[in-house]
């Protein structure tokens, strides 16, 4: 199928964000863009990206298949992701995932028969202070349990759009993909949605309640003078950068290609033995 004129125009806008000769940087946003029109990355979407950037389809596919957010088969309107990484897991995230999987009759990366919901278990979603968490099209529902989660998916299937705990009102996965391609969320007031949660503010509120501030802050403090730099081109500095890199972060060698000696990790290995 052919992509819409709007998608072509957006593709040009995306490519223009990157320096001339570096157009390939536009590939990730372009893949989000084709997903916003088709719901997943289709062979036609791969071809579209390849044509825009002068790449082969193989080059584009190699990238598209590396990243988990590019879906290779049709997805529901609602991508339901449950964190089952360690912290959420022990706090009940695994039970939430298992309950949803049984209730919906689908496993990881599968879509319900009515085509509304795609379920997945996710790795750490960076909201451990609200664990266990789940997201719908990547907006957060915090401190969930199996009952809350089942109620949530039933409301989604009934055509409702429950309000996420933090974050904007829900939009479909296609609409979200357009935002991921770097376009503003045009819905009135959506950016303003999502007041900070209690856990986010816990420390700073504790300080406020107890009158704790950091003393001595004077925004007029002078910046000071620059250190002397040699005049002219600083070829030597490239050498200095490498030397310092070597000092802080050992270069690769056959025995240690990461070049990152991690003394504490080695010590743990030794002591575990």
């Amino acid at each position: 199928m052919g992509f819409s004129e709007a998608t072509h125009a957006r593709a040009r806008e995306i490519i223009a964000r990157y320096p001339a000769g570096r157009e390939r940087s536009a590939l990730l946003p372009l893949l989000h863009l084709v997903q916003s029109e088709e719901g997943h990355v289709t062979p036609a979407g791969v071809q579209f990206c390849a044509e825009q950037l002068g790449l082969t389809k193989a080059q584009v596919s190699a990238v598209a298949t590396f990243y988990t957010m590019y879906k290779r088969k049709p997805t529901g309107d609602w991508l339901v992701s449950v964190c089952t990484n360690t912290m959420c897991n022990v706090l009940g995230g695994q039970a939430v995932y298992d309950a949803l999987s049984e209730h919906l009759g689908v496993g990881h990366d599968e879509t319900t028969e009515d085509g509304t919901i795609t379920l997945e278990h996710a790795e750490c979603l960076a909201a451990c202070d609200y664990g266990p968490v789940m997201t719908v099209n990547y907006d957060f529902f915090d401190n969930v349990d199996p009952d809350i989660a089942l109620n949530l998916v039933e409301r989604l299937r009934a055509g409702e759009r429950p309000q996420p705990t933090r974050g904007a009102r829900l939009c479909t996965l296609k609409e979200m993909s357009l935002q991921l391609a770097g376009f503003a969320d045009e819905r009135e007031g959506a950016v303003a949605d999502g007041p900070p949660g209690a856990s986010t503010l816990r420390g700073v509120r504790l300080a406020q309640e107890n009158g704790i501030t950091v003393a001595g802050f004077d925004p007029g403090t002078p910046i000071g003078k620059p250190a002397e730099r040699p005049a002219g081109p600083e070829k030597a500095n490239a050498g200095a950068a490498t030397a310092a890199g070597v000092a802080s972060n050992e270069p690769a060698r056959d025995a240690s290609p990461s070049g990152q000696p991690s003394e504490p990790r080695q010590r743990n290995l030794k002591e575990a033995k």
Partner: protein
Amino acid sequence: MSATAVTVPRREVLEKLTPVLTKRWLSPDAWRIDVYERLDGYAALRKALAAHPDALIQLIKDSGLRGRGGAGFPTGLKWGFIPQNDGKPHYLVVNADEGEPGTCKDLPLMMHDPHSLVEGVIIAAYAIRADRAYIYIRGEAVHAARRLRNAVKEAYAAGYLGRNILGSGFDLDLVVHSGAGAYICGEETALLDSLEGFRGQPRLRPPFPATHGLYASPTVVNNVGTISSVPYIVLGGAAWWKTMGTEKSSGPMIYSLSGRIANPGQYECSLGITLRELIELAGGMQPGHSLRFWTPGGSSTPLLTAEHLDVPLDFEGVAAAGSILGTTATQIFSDQDCPVYATYRWLEFYYHESCGKCTPCREGNYWMVRVYRRILSGQGTYEDLDTLLDTCDNILGRAFCGLGDGATSPVTSSLKYFKQDYLDYIEGRTAPKLSDKALVGAH
């Protein structure tokens, strides 16, 4: 720490709170530029643009600021490595690909105070003479990205970005670039490959990004917390910044507390605070739970135990205790949590996220997951424990980046402190936690 009830923190512990980067979070609309400007916003930029770029690099060196992304590299030193007058374009790239298990400090910052990051970007780019900057934000972080894109748009409209910023002659373009789901892209060279439109896989070093980074040009890659610290240092000065933290680990740090405590959340404190004090701030352990193991800075940092409650949580203190400060993502587990199962779940993560470039990490994590499934299904053997350590020995230091190294941390540290828990599964004293179904395909 015993199974105490909820506690009220003592005054001397409360005084370790240092609300600096988190302070504006209390103002609900601080993500809007007009509110941000009323709260000292963009004052640091005006001040910085009146100074020599090298003076800013020196200021950051003097402040002792170290990277907030986990490695703790001195920021001013990193900026100073960028060769000047070399005729090449320079780039500033912000690593906003937060995803280290346990870590949740950058997302709230970008959601509730995005302009502080944008302002920090402009000052840092001016200091290293970059006219293009990118914020590579984790794909899943959609609401933070909404606020950030909105902030960038507002900053352009106000003349803080674009051509001839505030009449200084300095030009800067800033692009917010969303990732697409890959933990490995938090590794700086994999991030650069991803930003160039490739699979996110790490690069061999040298050359280092300071000379051959984005588009093979001099590049600084800094974490969100690092760059957001810059405006405060520009305003308050290096000496003020050093009133917080310790001699070698200066400033405030956002500690992300999760797990079996009464009040999980973000606690910005002076670097060097201890876990005992953090738990006190968090209202104590949850009733009925007592501390058993914890990560000082995410799952890639070796586990510590109740023996380590008084370790100063700064770069040196944690290293001396046999772990790594990392991202100060303090995940707290109790006597009701199993260290073997916790490690297994982390290993599933590393196995899933290994980019596949290096054989030891790709294959090692694949096999370790299977060994853990066998142990947790009640079918483990004594030999499995040797196999795990042998596998770690073959991963540690033998992959291009730190992902593989990180995967060994929970394995070796849990075997070091909690070998008995493993033996209890092997010898049948602990009931299997996984069913035989989990063994399908295992060997």
